[in-house]
């Protein structure tokens, strides 16, 4: 794995993985728990608790984890849809300047927002039903005062073509379109301002399986074409494996493992990652029943366990895991793990590729 430092890009993939575009350092977001008549603060939900990672321009980085692990909160903080409690988020702008998103105020954020856009999960609720596609896709341009009406229309038509829809659709309303088509509209809207970083929060999980593949292909094509950087938030690990260059696994607000996709899936070093891998139901009936199942529930982020947050569910936990919280360290080049026993444990991940093809339908 360590020899394979540069990201292997398959044929047809013309991306250049460049310098850092975003550095997230010790990001924290705590929500207060208030009780009683005076709304006194009685505790905190540590939704994001000391998260550090870097995103390189042109790559797809995925955040995965169970619901409530803080992956969506992290992505929202980066977009500054909410203000983080502490930490830095250094964004490298197009012109080379670096801005700390965590501390920037409204007017400082305004020019940066053009460079960061979002694709939403639910294509049904994320498009205003009273706006035509032209209004929807043209809105980012209008808000940012780009072009006159005519130019906006041309740009919107161009964007529709880009995402595989016909420019004639511009005057129609969202209700006339299927889920997959709506998601394409959402993607066109995100692309309107030529962003560099796109945060996609579960962009395919509301879609049918046959449409999901179309949208994944489209996202990858657009990335090749425009050198986009994706921060992908998802819980479907097969999708994550398919689209990501690097993957960060979160558990109760913390990053527990961060590595290149293949290293993470085939050679996980954190017991939690390994149990996530084991839980993926493989679409192959002959690989049945070879899974070790994770017991118990996700820890409560308002009252996390002592030591390593994962120890109550961990099959490899020792005394030290209950007492001391492990640090997030690089155990192999590019492979970060938060586990006391990362170096000694031999964990199983997803078996490496067998060339026979796991699903027999591939021969038709």
């Amino acid at each position, binding site marked *: 794995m360590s020899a394979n430092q540069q990201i292997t890009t398959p044929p047809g993939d013309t991306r250049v993985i460049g310098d850092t575009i975003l550095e997230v350092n010790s990001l924290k977001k705590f929500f207060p728990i208030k009780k009683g008549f005076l709304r006194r603060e009685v505790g905190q939900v540590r939704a994001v608790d000391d998260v550090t990672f870097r995103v390189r321009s042109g790559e797809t980085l995925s955040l995965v984890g169970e619901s409530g692990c803080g992956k969506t909160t992290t992505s929202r903080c980066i977009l500054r849809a909410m203000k983080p409690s502490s930490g830095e988020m250094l964004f490298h702008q197009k012109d080379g300047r670096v801005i700390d998103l965590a501390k920037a105020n409204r007017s400082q954020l305004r020019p940066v927002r053009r460079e960061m856009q979002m694709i939403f999960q639910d294509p049904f609720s994320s498009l205003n039903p009273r706006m035509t596609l032209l209004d929807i896709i043209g809105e980012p341009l209008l808000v940012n005062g780009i072009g006159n009406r005519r130019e906006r229309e041309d740009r919107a038509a161009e964007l529709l073509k880009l995402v595989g829809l016909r420019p004639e659709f511009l005057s129609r309303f969202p209700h006339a379109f299927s889920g997959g088509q709506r998601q394409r509209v959402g993607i066109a809207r995100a692309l309107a301002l030529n962003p560099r970083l796109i945060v996609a929060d579960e962009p395919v999980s509301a879609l049918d399986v*046959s449409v999901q593949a179309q949208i994944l292909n489209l996202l*990858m094509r657009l990335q090749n074409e425009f050198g986009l950087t994706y921060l992908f938030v998802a819980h479907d690990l097969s999708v994550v*494996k398919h689209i990501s260059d690097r993957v960060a696994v979160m558990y109760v607000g913390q990053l527990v493992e961060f590595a290149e996709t293949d290293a993470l899936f085939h050679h996980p070093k954190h017991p939690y990652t390994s149990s996530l891998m084991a839980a993926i*139901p493989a*679409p192959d009936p002959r690989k049945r029943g070879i899974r070790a199942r994770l*017991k118990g529930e996700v820890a409560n982020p308002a009252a996390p366990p002592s030591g390593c947050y994962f120890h109550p569910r961990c099959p490899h936990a020792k005394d030290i895991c209950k007492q001391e919280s492990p640090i997030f360290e690089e155990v192999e080049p590019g492979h970060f793990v938060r586990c006391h026993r990362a170096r000694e444990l031999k964990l199983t991940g997803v078996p490496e590729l067998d060339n026979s093809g*796991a699903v027999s*339908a591939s021969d038709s």
Partner: protein
Amino acid sequence: MSTEEAPLLSVKDLQTHFFTDEGLVRAVDGVTFDIHRGKTLGVVGESGCGKSVTARSLMRIIDRPGKIVGGSIMLRKPRNDGSNQIDEIEIGELTDDGREIRSIRGESIGLVFQEPMTSFSPVHTIGNQIIEAIQLHRPLDDRAARNRATELLTMVGVSRPEERLDELPFQMSGGLRQRAMIAMALACEPDLLIADEPTTALDVTTQSQILELLQDLQEENGMAVMLITHNLGVIAEMADDVVVMYLGQVAEKGTVDEIFYAPKHPYTKALLQSIPNIYQPSRVELPTISGSIPHPYNRPAGCPFHPRCPEFMPGTCDVHVPETLVSPTGQHVRCFLYTEGAVRIDREEATAGKDASQ
């Protein structure tokens, strides 16, 4: 497929239509399958393929303007009096909300809904809701019913069941709620458990816990399970037999091995290819199914899949409705590719085919 005894439930040519103001929607249009005791039938399909309506038809809980307009649903229910007699009940012919159908719901067939978030009443405790289900079918007093509810929650792996009984649904996590939902469906030990997307709203780790729970329960009491999902991984993990549905019809039916290793229908093949698979290399273009699912009012003539089909044969698939063909091993497929001398047979059927497509 080796089970010699008569299937627990036989559905033949079931048709459930919705008579809406905008037109007729054939949500279920001639579906045939059997469910055997102790086996799991997987039903796969995308949204709008009629899989949930099929499940609801089996329990006769189709809301207006929907109606079962044809076909038969035969339930073979062992008599409770200890004799080895089996009653054959035609669910399709029971009166709406009559005593018989109400005794089947919950008693013979349990249903687990898709969304654990919305399928409980938010203003009653979990315990009250489970106890209500028990007392509907069993002559138990409050205390006995409560004990039974505790027992059920323990069985589905809920910790501290006594306390959980007094909690409201919003106080529980998604996984816990889904377990409570399963506990409620199992309250009267049904012969058949219908699970409609039981794990779709859940995380992978919780999903695998719930699937294991279903397998264990099935092993213990020989219950049949009808598992409805669009997740082919879940099907591969759980099902014995698989029905692949597309626009209200069964496109293909077979054992889980046949469907995954020898799929015949182009739709099944395309579905299997288009899902990202953790065993395949990353970042390659996925084979896709072109287009999207047709609008229900705007059903294509002929084979419903033909506008998206890579093997589309003009003049055949867009004109005639394919018949269901049965292979020697019992695999059913509804596609002209496997009709010998397709064109000749079509001419004979030309008129019939046209009528059906109108």
